[in-house]
């Protein structure tokens, strides 16, 4: 022990020299380098859907490895299992429905603190009905040059649903999870056409969401949607790709509307981690986000020129696994409605442009308004509450750190990101909804007042 003093002095000198060498090798980098990742072996979960692409690309293109991360990607059985495994720590993070971190934080379904610093994509979903329902809807759909005029509104479905109600038959439809984008999109579309999708009443123990419903919505995992509809259990569903195009290929259903037509450039999936994980591994978190921003950029680069390669990656059995042609149908800028009716939808899948990866508070608040609208939040909440939850769950600060690193590394130009000095986290009021209602994220209660169907201020089930 008596030798310890000179030894530590030696060590100090050694470390100083080492530090000098390290800093010398970074000449030209003036920014603060993110430290080494605290955890290097990571396991991320995903659901077999095309919008998991940023994860697959970050893995296959080596972006994770560039950050010193050794990532394993693992398909999960359904959204519930995925969320539970992130909470228990079996998964370090996962491809999640935007509503999942929010729903978990406010305690709808499962209560846990989940955050997100990365939004995975815009759009990418559609609503499909079975051939039989489509045949009944078709007479009510306006046509031009022998082709249906898009977007098709739920007005055309209403007489069909009414006839089912008259005959005393339930009109069943599928969505993927109670707090899923798909649930809210399907409800939005139905309600805009005067079909009531039903309320939730969690304070009374009702989490099935069928109170006062004209159409009964239930949960089905994404890959099982087509076969469940084929079996006749549901007449239609809202799901992400490739499970709408799969219905077209199988000849069992017709996608009637894409989410791009319900709300242009709507936020969809996020990358979620638990709050505890993020606190324990901050550098790892930033590096993960860095890798995924690069992947998203690669996906949209030069007018989607990499999309065919991305489709090839996704069609591997360990990722989405569906046929190349089925995935390519929606990933390369087109969408096939009724068999043979293939149309251009260049923005059906957006991964990077329009700041798609930035976690906007206004996106979080939109989801919260829909939770309130359908009774998942049973009591009236002030506007400030919406803002507080959004700030707790959506973490643009982490995103900004990662983005600044990428700018400093010279990988992505600053002009491709929002201006972090002035960005408020609120998109300007959005006007591109199928019912032409304007959404202003800073006034959630005022927004809720605009809907004919749905809970408002002091309503309680």
């Amino acid at each position, binding site marked *: 022990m008596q030798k310890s003093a000179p030894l530590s002095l030696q060590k100090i000198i050694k470390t100083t020299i*080492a530090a000098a*060498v*390290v800093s010398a*090798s970074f000449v030209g980098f003036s920014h603060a380098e993110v430290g080494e990742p605290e955890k*290097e*072996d990571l396991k991320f979960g995903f659901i*077999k859907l095309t919008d998991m692409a940023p994860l697959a690309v970050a*893995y296959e293109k*080596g972006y994770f*490895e560039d950050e*010193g991360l*050794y*990532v*394993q990607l693992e*398909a*999960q*059985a359904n959204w519930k*299992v995925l969320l539970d495994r992130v909470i*228990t720590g*079996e998964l370090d993070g996962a491809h999640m429905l935007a509503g999942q971190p929010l729903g978990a934080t406010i305690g709808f379904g499962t209560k846990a603190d989940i955050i997100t610093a990365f939004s995975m994509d815009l759009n990418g979903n559609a609503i499909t009905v079975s051939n039989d329902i489509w045949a009944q809807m078709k007479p009510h759909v306006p046509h031009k040059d022998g082709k249906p005029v898009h977007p098709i509104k739920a007005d055309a479905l209403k007489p069909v649903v009414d006839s089912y109600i008259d005959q005393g038959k339930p009109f069943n439809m599928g969505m993927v999870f109670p707090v899923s984008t798909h649930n809210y999109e399907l409800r939005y579309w139905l309600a805009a056409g005067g079909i009531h999708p039903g309320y939730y009443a969690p304070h009374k123990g009702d989490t099935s969401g069928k109170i006062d419903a004209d159409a009964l919505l239930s949960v089905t995992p994404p*890959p*099982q949607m*087509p*076969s469940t509809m*084929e079996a006749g259990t549901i007449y239609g569903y809202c799901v992400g790709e490739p499970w709408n195009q*799969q219905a077209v290929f*199988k*000849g*069992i259903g017709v996608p009637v509307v894409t989410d791009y037509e319900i709300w242009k450039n709507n936020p969809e999936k996020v990358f979620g981690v638990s709050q505890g994980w993020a606190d324990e591994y901050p550098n790892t978190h930033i590096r993960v986000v860095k890798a995924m921003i690069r992947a998203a950029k690669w996906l949209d680069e030069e007018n989607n020129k990499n999309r065919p390669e991305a489709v090839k990656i996704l*069609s591997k*059995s*360990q990722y*989405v*696994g*569906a*046929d190349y042609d*089925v995935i390519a149908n929606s990933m390369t800028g087109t969408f096939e409605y009724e068999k043979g009716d293939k149309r251009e939808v260049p923005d059906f899948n957006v991964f990077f442009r329009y700041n798609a990866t930035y976690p906007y508070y206004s996106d979080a608040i939109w989801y919260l308004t829909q939770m309130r609208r359908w009774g998942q939040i049973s009591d009236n909440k002030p506007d400030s509450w919406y803002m507080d939850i959004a700030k707790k769950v959506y973490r643009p600060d982490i995103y900004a750190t990662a983005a600044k690193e990428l700018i400093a590394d010279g990988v992505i130009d600053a002009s491709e990101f929002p201006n972090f000095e002035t960005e408020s986290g609120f998109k300007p009021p959005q006007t591109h909804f199928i019912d032409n209602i304007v959404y202003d994220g800073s006034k959630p209660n005022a927004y809720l007042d605009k809907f004919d169907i749905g809970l408002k201020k002091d309503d309680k089930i």
Partner: protein
Amino acid sequence: MKDKLIHSLETVGLGPVVPMVRLASGENPKQQLSEIFERIGLPILAIALFLLLWSVSAAKVQTSLGTLPGPAQVWQQYQGLVVEHKEERAKEVAFYERQEVRNAKKLAKNPDAKIKVRPYTGKETFFDQILTSLYTVFTGFILASLIAIPIGVACGLNKKLYGAVSPIIQILKPVSPLAWLPIVTMVVSAVYVSSDPMFSKSFVTSAITVTLCSLWPTLINTATGVASIDKDWLNVGRVIQLHWSKQVTKIAIPASLPMIFTGLRISLGIGWMVLIAAEMLAQNPGLGKFVWDEFQNGSSNSLGRIMVAVVVIGLIGYVLDWLMVSLQKIISHSSPENAR
């Protein structure tokens, strides 16, 4: 020499080859030829007929993923899986090379940095999944045998004990793996907590489920076998004052070996069947997960790949059974002609 060869062939279950050996040594050609036809020709004919029936009828079943694959398509999918396996191995090599370069860089930057070599992060191929399944089933099966044989021997030696636990055995025996699985999963998740576990939770869950379902045949057969030993033998043991442990190891177990092995054979068969179901349901790595993943993919190759898995599962089950029979013949010294 010849007789020895024939004996060992019979022991390892290669009986059908025996007539060829006899023929080669010039033993009554006419009789041997008809034997060969009977023991090799007929099964091959039956298999050929089965394949023909399969390919004809499969082509007539139209699913939403195309027609049901026949033997030719299944063979094609199998080759696809082999190609995938080779590609994945190549990727694995590249992965380690990249890691080496990265680690070297890290060391150059900071000589004190801790370097760790990580296992490959890519997907498990079909053949990896087979190994995982085999490893899991043997773990579960050995665990089951270690529990079932001692309890079985004790029950066989002591009628009262057998009477006491018999109702429990009868009630637990028919419980399906699908019922055990959720319970085992919850218990393992709660009890098996470790920051750096030696085995993954999914492996432990699958193995224990296999154990729970496959220990009953061994237990019951062992008990019955031990109980039905000639009483005189046990009496002799008593007369010459053998220690009870010697009585068990020298008399009870050897005398009931054929029954124990019959039990083990059934147990292993059940374990293999249960494992595939458990993996499928719990999404644990292995052949069951492979089948489930392919079902979820819904690609035009999926059905063919699932059928490849089915054929492989069947073949492995057959090989496992054959292994147990050979082991029984070797250990119990019974004449190979009698044990079938």
